[in-house]
């Protein structure tokens, strides 16, 4: 590996349990988003566009899809001979082996990897945020302010501040305090989970944190407060622009809808800051005679014979004649059979919605699939690789999970396919 000024580490290890069946077989960062993308395309493309060429992806939970998706790194120009993208799983050392405990522990376990790159700075990123950001500018500010750590922050509406990790700052945006979800926030600067550390400072902190058995080994909860306590200089870097944590079903749905309702905010059309993705190698999409497509995003391989309104369709989605898809997010390879009606549905890879199925926020009824923990605002989530029985009815706030044991009469899953 080549010596480099800065190494980016993307935390992609968590299961993302709040995304329910969407992360049953794949890690959260590999979940499709915005028609053409996976969530991890955003931090990876930001790195590529910022000129950062050594990127470690810390994976642990179901890394196969992520591993094959990132692959040789080519789509993000990260197939470098020196550097590039590295998948970093937990491993065994002489005499011991550990799974990653918290975010800080994941970095701690890979400190040899970072040391090998001999960086001055380390950029810590989350694998589940949608935003475009020039990390090179943030790094420039970090260097100029002689900070030990720089935390990207976003001004959030005051009323939302209690939902975030809030940074209280003094002159020159120097951070005085970090408060996790404050009831009475003193500031509306929310941490975005994007950190630049001077590596030797972080290195020491990680070792100290690791030796503290009471620590959760978490950046927000442990590392940042520890550095503040030690009097290190932590500076806030103000970011303005679109940013969204897509850790829940409702935020994932909202972020998809934002592409349609406020396309200028994330601005995927901006050719000076492209979001790269692994290409599905499908032909251009086709819209048939009699089809209606409005207010929607479509990509390669889609074939639309029915009606698609205010929806985001990933590649190779087929909507048959007479089917209606509204306010929905359909992942790659989904087929909506003739006469089906979907409203506010998120449908996983390759699932077939049977003929005449009625599913979504506007559908009323009682079924064992209703899951208020995962779903809200009426959104229906359907697992990948299913055939939903023809004419099934799936009311608001359902999560269709093939592992849920349901009475045959109430079962809407006709078949479970293997999905590649």
């Amino acid at each position, binding site marked *: 590996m080549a010596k480099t000024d800065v190494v980016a580490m993307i935390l992609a290890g968590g299961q993302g349990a709040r995304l329910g069946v969407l992360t049953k077989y794949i890690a959260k960062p590999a979940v499709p988003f915005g028609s*053409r993308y996976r969530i991890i395309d955003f931090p990876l493309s930001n790195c590529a566009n910022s000129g950062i060429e050594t990127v470690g992806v810390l994976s642990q939970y179901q890394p196969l899809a992520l591993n094959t998706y990132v692959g040789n790194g080519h789509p993000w120009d990260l197939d470098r001979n020196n550097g590039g993208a590295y998948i970093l799983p937990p491993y065994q050392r002489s005499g011991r082996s550990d799974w990653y405990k918290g975010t800080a522990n994941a970095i701690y376990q890979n400190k040899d990897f970072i040391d090998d790159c001999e960086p001055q700075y380390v950029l810590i990123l989350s694998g589940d945020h949608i935003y475009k950001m020039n990390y090179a500018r943030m790094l420039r500010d970090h260097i100029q302010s002689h900070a030990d750590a720089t935390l990207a922050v976003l001004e959030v509406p005051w009323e939302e501040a209690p939902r975030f990790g809030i940074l209280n700052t003094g002159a020159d945006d120097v951070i005085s305090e970090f408060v996790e979800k404050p009831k009475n926030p003193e500031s509306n600067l929310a941490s975005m989970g994007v950190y630049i550390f001077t590596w030797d400072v972080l290195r020491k902190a990680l070792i100290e944190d690791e030796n503290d058995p009471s620590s959760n080994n978490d950046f927000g909860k442990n590392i940042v407060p520890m550095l503040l306590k030690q009097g290190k200089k932590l500076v806030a870097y103000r970011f303005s622009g679109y940013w969204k944590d897509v850790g829940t079903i409702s935020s994932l749905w909202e972020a998809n809808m934002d592409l349609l309702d406020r396309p200028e905010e994330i601005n995927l*059309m901006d050719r000076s800051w492209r979001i*790269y993705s692994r290409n599905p190698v499908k032909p251009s*999409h086709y*819209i*048939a005679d009699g089809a209606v497509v*409005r207010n929607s995003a479509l990509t390669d391989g889609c074939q639309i014979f029915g009606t698609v309104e205010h929806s985001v369709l990933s590649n190779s989605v087929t909507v048959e004649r007479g089917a209606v898809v509204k306010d929905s997010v359909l992942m790659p390879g989904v087929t909506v059979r003739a006469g089906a009606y979907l409203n506010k549905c998120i449908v996983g890879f390759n699932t077939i919605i049977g003929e005449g199925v009625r599913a979504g926020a506007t559908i009323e009824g009682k079924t064992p699939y209703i899951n208020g923990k995962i779903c809200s605002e009426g959104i229906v989530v359907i697992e990948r690789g299913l055939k939903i029985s023809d004419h099934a009815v799936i009311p608001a706030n359902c999560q269709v999970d093939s592992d849920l044991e349901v009475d045959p009469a109430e079962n809407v899953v006709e078949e479970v396919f293997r999905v590649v």
Partner: protein
Amino acid sequence: MFIDAMGLILADNNKISLGELSKPRALAAVPFGGRYRIIDYMLSDMVNSGIKSVGILTLNKYKSLMDHLGTGASWDLDRKTFGLHILPPYVNSEATGVEDAEELAGILDYVRSNRSAYAIIANSNMILNTTFNDFVEKHEQSGADVSVMYNRDGTKYGIPNYIFDVDRKGYVKDMLFNPQKTTSNRCSLGIIVLRRELLLDLIAEMIARGERSFGVHAITKKYDTLRIRAHEYKGLVLRINNVQTYFNSSMMLLDDKVRADLFWKGMPIYTKVKDEAPALYSDSSTVSNSILSDGCRIMGSVTNSMLFRGVTISKNSKIHNCVIMQDVHVSENCELENVILDKNSVIRPGIKLVGHRDFPVVIGKGAIV
């Protein structure tokens, strides 16, 4: 299992002109079918056959082609050994030390440096999705010197065409170029296979005879000295012989069956990755029977048309029976019918352009109308 063959694609063809469309670029680099360029089909066919070494023979005007092909990564041909090579016409100027290039010596060097058993040589005006495994296997079994692919299109797609007469055993006994009348409808697809060693001998002989041009039919015309087997291809083939066939072939892709044969047989057609955003349709869009690509923004009406990547159709504009290439901007209140718009052209507000189905209006690359 994959075949042991190298590929050679002739990127240009002196006998074919697509007018404005082939003026700024080689025939092989002309956009076709939404996301693709003409060469993508033949190149993908070769890659899907397991061929890992493809040489592209160029005449001139090949900057577009170089830009499109890049390192070959999109076709997984960015390889340490073999992979994709563009053979410029002057390639051998240094091999011989002679300033006036002899193309054939360059090709000879390239073919000699390979190690495959077979060579497949193809023109680039045929659009088809196939693998050559069966073609090569049958050739191997037959013991023929050369096999050439044809189908039963006869002369109906106009000139240029090469019509084969075959004997009872299926060997070529006559080849006619653009015949007025013919007793055979066997029309060459411009794709041949032969042993690489034989190809070397043929090129060496051509050099010795002072010949300077190289091509598929320069080989098949040797049917009196070589045993040339005619191999019928029964799948879909679109022939690009001129602007009319280009336009018609584009329109044929709107047919479900044609698209199914060309794109959905499980063998992908690769092309350069562009990393465009998804296509965005506004509230005011009306689209029917059309192919559209990533990066399009549709606010108007699009019917019976083919839109390449990054096309903008503004409000109140109507597009009917059109082929619109990459990054074209159609302003508000335009009406276009039977028009081909080349890359980067701009249609200003309120413009109306109507061509005839058989004589589409062609707007050149980068033109502002």
